[in-house]
């Protein structure tokens, strides 16, 4: 679905006084292949290059070296622009700064209007997509009266109306409160599981990455870890080095293991941790 081949990206930085030109390299040779229908989380601290990578999938940024393909379309070819953007829809971090229209329903209609879709078909898509994100009852509301989580769901709906096969979310929950985060995460999971949509979630929240089926960790413009969540999170010390958190229960299991107790290193959820600890207490009683 999404593919990068030896992707490099650098900013040209010219010192106006000395005339010296420096290149600030953000991405160094990224090779990736994201499968149709998968849910991939891309982790990394701020400045690791994760958002820069995301913007390449939508042709907002173009490679300085290497290639990016969206469903086989080369992002460097301008003729593919609308095809790429309507195949891989993009949702951004700040819910306030990505909504254009003064009414929710018009927001959802914005993209298909741009694509010249028939009014009747726009109507159908708007109704369907607002339903998917659970915002139907707010169709006639003003975005400024909504909560952060609701605004972000409208932003998702406004991308869904292009009927993309893939959705890329660049830190969609970074500015939300816990309730908003949960709303957005539930929506994302629903899109992936029920609608079979390919999801790429850029985030620095570990608990969000835990619901993905693949986790890619980026540091300093390169991929440093790429595996299923359990395998990635088990590397507690490595993640801390990379400036990332691990779920508290994973950390707890890690510390107990370190002290010689027999626990699996890849515990991610409270349920799992409780179950394994109970087994441990049970064994001890015997």
């Amino acid at each position: 679905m999404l593919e990068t081949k030896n992707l490099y990206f650098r900013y040209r930085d010219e010192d106006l006084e000395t005339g010296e030109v420096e290149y600030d390299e953000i991405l160094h040779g990224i090779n990736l292949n994201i499968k149709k229908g998968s849910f991939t989380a891309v982790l990394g601290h701020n400045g690791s290059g994760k958002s820069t990578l995301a913007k390449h999938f939508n042709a907002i940024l173009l490679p300085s070296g290497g290639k990016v393909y969206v469903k086989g379309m080369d992002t460097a070819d301008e003729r593919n622009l609308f095809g790429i953007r309507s195949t891989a829809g993009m949702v951004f971090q700040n819910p306030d700064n990505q909504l254009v229209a003064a009414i929710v329903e018009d927001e959802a209609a914005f993209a298909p209007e741009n694509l010249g879709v028939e009014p009747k078909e726009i109507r159908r898509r708007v109704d369907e997509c607002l339903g998917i994100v659970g915002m139907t009852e707010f169709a006639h509301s003003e975005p400024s009266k909504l909560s952060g989580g609701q605004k972000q769901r409208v932003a998702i709906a406004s991308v869904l109306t292009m009927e993309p096969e893939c959705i890329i979310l660049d830190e969609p929950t970074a500015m939300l409160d816990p309730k908003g985060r949960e709303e957005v995460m539930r929506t994302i999971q629903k899109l992936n599981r029920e609608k079979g949509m390919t999801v790429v979630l850029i985030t620095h929240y570990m608990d969000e990455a835990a619901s993905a089926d693949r986790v890619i960790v980026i540091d300093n413009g390169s991929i440093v870890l790429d595996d299923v969540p359990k395998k990635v999170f088990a590397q507690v010390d490595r993640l801390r080095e990379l400036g990332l958190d691990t779920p508290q229960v994973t950390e707890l299991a890690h510390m107990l293991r370190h002290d010689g107790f027999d626990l699996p290193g890849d515990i991610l959820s409270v349920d799992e941790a409780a179950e394994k600890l109970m087994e441990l207490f049970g064994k001890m009683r015997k």
Partner: protein
Amino acid sequence: MIKAEHVNYIYQPGMAGERQALFDISMEIADGTLNALIGHTGSGKSTLIQHFNALVRPTSGRIFIDGTDVTDKKTDLREVRRRVGLVFQYPEHQLFEETVEKDIAFGPRNLGLTDEEIKERVHAASAAVGLKEKYLSRSPFELSGGQKRRAAIAGVLAMNPEVLILDEPTAGLDPRGRDAILDIIKQLHAQNPRMIIIFVSHSMEDVAKTAEYVYVMNRGRLAIRGTTAEVFAEGGELVKMGLNVPQVTLLVNRLIEAGIPLPRDVYTVKYAVKEIERLLR
């Protein structure tokens, strides 16, 4: 000491948007304490902290800062605002000067201090937030997100407040940036034995790691208060209010229900490990 007596606040009284935001808040916060204020969005946290430095006046009730009634019309509000420093959410959005130094100096300058004193304050404040000297001559808009936030916090610290209030100081930061800010808070607490620090947070993990006392707001009322251990021992109540409880607290509660005799007030990973190992050995 901060003391609130029966504070009620009605937003836009008599208008279409009338809504009571605070109901009968009474509380006392002692000098030298590090406090967290938690609650869901719209619970009244932000409204309450704006009462402490008289940016918002209560509809009824009184608030005292060290005995001075800040709700009294005769009280000098500028003096109140000097004593009670308030760092807003995303404070980097209020930076405006040409250089970081000038921006931090904005508060002290408004106090009418001499250039010498201002300089001293700026340097002390930037040291307190770990902002390197070389950044002082730069434009605030050139700094990274985390550095901008430090500069903005320094701008409030430079007023030499007796009370420091931070509204969601870690919002939008990555784990590294978040830990850096929490460390600054802990250090300020350690180095200023009389300063009251209050921070608002959505992250229970941050609160557990940092605060000594926790105040929980729910629908405009002060629902729970106590030491961090006491408040997290009420895990069930917190969940009912739509708040997240640290994962370890959930885990420990689960184990207690299953009959493992762990203490209820476990809220950090280290403490949990210690208690679990004690039982297992």
